[in-house]
């Protein structure tokens, strides 16, 4: 009980001043094929570099106007019956394309975050298994990526309705994420399209 009571105290109103030894990360197993390992350690670049990310959009997808910046693409996958009818599908699967610097915190952290967004809890070993089982692919421009499939994961909580299918693509200085999130059954039926979309991605630029 006392252990449960052990909330960490915090000192409000006072700054902390301390010394630490500068952390030296191991040389990163960086770039090139993502042989199932992490995307590498934090990039030491401190100035942003540019890449250009383009793709081929499946016919039935709708483009959302929220596409901006880090979310460089934002789409909806409507129900097949509503596709191209001009009618909005409130349960359309949301697809985002996001570009982050470096390894964006690492594979594990990002997959854990995706899991958290749909109410899944993942121990590190679960996430390692997901990474191990993830199918690999190569983009149109030769970057290596992996598909992250959470649609077969259930939290055990009956309230869980959403799921995620996504792709993670590593470039030398950036990581590009494609995430399709929505009702689990809808995400399952959209997987093939998301795979094709992810493979169609082209990443160009001096740092690609």
């Amino acid at each position: 009980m006392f252990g449960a009571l052990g909330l960490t105290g915090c000192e409000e109103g006072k700054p902390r001043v301390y010394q630490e030894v500068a952390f030296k990360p191991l040389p990163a197993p960086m770039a090139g094929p993502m042989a199932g390992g992490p995307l590498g350690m934090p990039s030491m670049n401190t100035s942003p570099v540019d890449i250009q990310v383009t793709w081929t959009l499946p016919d039935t997808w709708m483009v959302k106007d929220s596409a901006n910046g880090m979310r460089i693409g934002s789409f909806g996958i409507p129900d097949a019956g509503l596709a191209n009818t001009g009618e909005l599908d409130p349960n359309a699967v949301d697809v985002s394309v996001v570009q982050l610097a470096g390894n964006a915190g690492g594979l594990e952290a990002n997959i854990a975050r995706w899991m958290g967004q749909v109410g899944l809890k993942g121990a590190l070993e679960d996430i390692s298994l997901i990474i191990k089982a993830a199918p690999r692919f190569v983009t149109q421009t030769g970057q290596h990526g992996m598909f992250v499939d959470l649609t077969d994961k259930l939290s055990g909580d009956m309230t869980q309705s959403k799921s995620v299918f996504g792709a993670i693509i590593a470039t030398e200085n950036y990581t590009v994420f494609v995430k399709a999130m929505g009702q689990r059954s809808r995400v399952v039926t959209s997987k093939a399209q998301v795979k094709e979309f992810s493979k169609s991605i082209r990443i160009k630029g001096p740092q690609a």
Partner: protein
Amino acid sequence: MSASPSWRQKAARHPVTKAILHPAITLVSLLILFALIFFGTLYQANHGLYEAQLRFFGYGIVPIGGFFPLPTASVVMWILSVQLTLTMALVLRWKWSLAGLWIVHSGIMTLLVGGFITQILAVESQLTLAEGETGNFTTAYHEYEVAFWESHGDTNQVFAWEDVNLRPGAELEIPPYQCRIRILNYYQNSDAFTTKATNGPKFLNASNIGMLEQRKPEKEVTQNAPGVTFTLLEKGKGDREVLLYAQELQPLILTLDGRKVNVQLRLKHYPLDFSLKLTQFIKTVHPGTDIPSSFESYADLTDQGATRPVKIWMNNPLRTKGYTFFQASYAQPAGAAQKSTFAVVTNPGRVMPYISSLVVFGGLLMHFLIKLVPFIRRGAAT
């Protein structure tokens, strides 16, 4: 404890004292603690450990089942502490025959004091190392800080404000660099976008992030991605707007007071005055399954130039200089070095439950003997 008996007796008979010390309050308090632990455990399954701790074991009122209000565990513990203190101060008589009871009550008081010490002073953090990697600091699980630092050789001199201070409108001094920051917004959980908001300021940022949007906090607080925006106010210079996002890997480098300074929103660091290098991690599984039977971390601990090998494995933590390193987790990414995660705890109240148990045991034994001797004498006399 040197109060005169008459004063104690008067105070003990006072209606307020009698009301406070009513046995029903003790009984109800213990039942509430039982209920809080039961419902808190259920709540934890869906909402995570931190939320459960905060809601059921912090201070305040928690509605059980959404409608039945109960005081939280800390409140109940205070009630029990007040009862115990008053009992010892006013009710329990100073008699040799009651010495055992005095010791028992002192033991229970030790337990309560230990609980409060733990609540206030214990710090829980973590350290994840890949094989071959050396760690010099641990990081908090979910508490963040805006850190400003300069590197001097192998040492970083850090000045940091914790997230609890990052309230919109707050002005925080950064004395080492003769400047201050005015917080515009702090997001406990957020999404980042590289385009800037319509009519929003152009932020300085290391990853080209132009805008943050509030997200609903995650169930597990460790999965939140906080962000902060602030105005940097430097004497004689124009104001600069800065955006920091916790998922950024690299710090923003600013020139402050003529010096290159790193600025980052990051999990709070706890520097260690020794280092730990993970040399090997071994996971053993039950034969024919993927179910782990044990995890073992072999590490080199270097303190003041001296290095010694240490082994940390399940239920066998490393205890050194007030820190306890528990084997907590691991990762085995294919094609990369294995990683081991240690839960690191510093808790000045750690030994109090052991002391308390011994004192209570000693008190009960003494009380038993004090009662046993007259009983035997009476038996011999008849």
